[in-house]
């Protein structure tokens, strides 16, 4: 059995175990005097979890003899690094929104993100960032009154 299939099957089983554990927990907390209906919350969680467990076992069983690695999207090391960089900056952006507010976080985000995707010129980077952040702020915060966090420094 190839490693990829093993990991996928294991994930199936892990998620199903979480569901089963939750279902058992809910069933054990059933209050006999409260109105639960014929199917309590625990039983309803258990059913898809058990189905997922069976699906995972069937998946592993059917693929256990297949030693070939299924075709995946070709790995491009440089591209992969860029994708990871984009994701990392995105996570930083979301974190910074809470810390310094939407406006400042957006400026940092675009400056870094444009750099990662390949805009080498800082002048172009700054101009683009200014325009896009300005437009977004005007449309979403000013006109649409979306209330983003102001950050710990400005709240």
């Amino acid at each position, binding site marked *: 059995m190839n490693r990829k299939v093993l990991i996928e099957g294991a994930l199936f089983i892990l998620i199903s175990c979480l569901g089963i554990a939750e279902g058992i927990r809910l069933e054990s907390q059933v209050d006999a005097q409260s109105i639960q209906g*014929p199917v309590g919350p625990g039983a309803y969680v258990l059913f898809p979890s058990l189905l997922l467990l069976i699906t995972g076992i069937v998946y592993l069983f059917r693929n256990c003899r297949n030693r070939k690695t299924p075709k995946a999207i070709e790995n491009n090391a440089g591209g992969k690094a860029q994708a990871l960089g984009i994701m990392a900056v995105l996570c930083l952006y979301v974190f910074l929104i809470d810390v310094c507010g939407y406006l400042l976080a957006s400026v940092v985000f675009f400056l870094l993100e444009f750099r990662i995707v390949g805009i080498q010129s800082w002048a172009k980077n700054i101009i683009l960032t200014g325009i896009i952040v300005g437009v*977004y702020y005007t449309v979403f915060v000013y006109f649409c009154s979306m209330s983003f966090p102001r950050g710990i420094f400005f709240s």
Partner: protein
Amino acid sequence: MDLVYGIINCLTFSNLLYCFVGCILGTLVGVLPGLGPASTLSILLPLTMYLDPTGSIIMLSGLFYGAMYGGSTTSILVNIPGEASSVATALDGFQMTRQGRAGEALWISAMGSFIAGTLGVVALSFIGPGMAKYALKFGPPEYFGLILFSMGALINLSGTSIAKGLGAGLVGILLSMVGVDPLTGVGRFDYGSIELMKGFELIPLTIGLFGIGEILISAEAGVGKIYEGKLKNMMPRGEELKRGLVASIRGTLVGFIPGLLPGMVPSLTSFMAYDVEKRFSKHPEKFGTGLIEGVAACESANNATAQAGFIPLMALGIPTGPALAIILGALMMYGLQPGPVLFEANKQFVWTVIGSMYIGNVILLILNLPLVGMWARISLIPYKYLGPTILAICVIGAYSPRNTMFDVWVALAAGALGYLMRKNQWPVAPLILGFILGPMLEQAFRQSLAIGGMGIFFTRPIAVFFILLTIITTIISVRLLKRVPKEIIEVESEV
């Protein structure tokens, strides 16, 4: 005759302007991922209080069904569904773009939306109250049967492995259970967290799985532009046009009839239509590779559902979805009580609004066909400019439903999940379908048991019909999938 007067009434400058503004806003809302009609309607509602009731409802309605048109544009061009109802459109629409057929995809999407929208309004005009009364016969067991039938689509959306599709769907159902039990109020999968107790929202999940996931995949693949070709050959021709139009009509029927029922939102019926189209097709294995029917059916269904939703809203005062609930709120704020009385006591208002829908569909056809180039320019912008811009919009879109950063983190996590799923050829669509259908299925199932135990599913004819239909069509689908060479089906799982 009332309809004629209604259309004439709508042709005043002010009503036309409100209709136009509503349609433009609706298209824009549809194009932007995350900004759904419900959230935009709720933002606009206070502003429309300054307008007269007719103008206000015309604009709000235009925004609602306009979003159904606009949502397909980014689904097709950049594989980022603008609305949940356009998720199914991306399955084949984006593949058509990759093959240089973005123009045809956009054309059939707009035309299918127009056909469905117009036929829907015709039905609203002539059979409104009569159709709505049958919806009262649908109780929880019937809903359960209908949703179970929709679940059968999980099999068809599975790609190479039914186990993967079923697994993804079940994970989607489990994700939908995070939060609070709908009948008893106990926390599920919350692990003591207040945020988890609120559950996951659909919009951040779809934005992450499709939007952020797509950008990460494109970045890794080194995409220079999303679409390099020109938008030539807008109109499909010959056999392809015929297939597209037939699929539009079928999608309209699939979207319209369930659309009369509460809970049947456009996102659900678009998947149903896709599934039905696949079952009717001589080449079901080609779905997901860029078939025009895959685009036409979904878009027609979601528009038909949007229009159909106005029938129970106006005839019975029952909103079939969150956006229509806001429109109901607007009606009540103006002192207009929906129901049979509305058609009699406020005839001019009702028929003017209905008349505006005819005009609105024409406006939307113009916005989305000849002017689609304006929206399509998005696809010609180099990806290095577009990618970060779209990511920032995804963040805004994920934040907007509940104004909480937790949803944005959910979108990020979903983005990582979507990226990994697509890299390893796991189908994403069943996960979303399971997430959407899970709560509805649960509620219908448990309410049915509370009414009459398990036996109720065998004694209610409509429920029995749908359950048998599910079993039969699932068996047929599994057998058909086994016959198709795996190499062909592999492409389907790349959403």
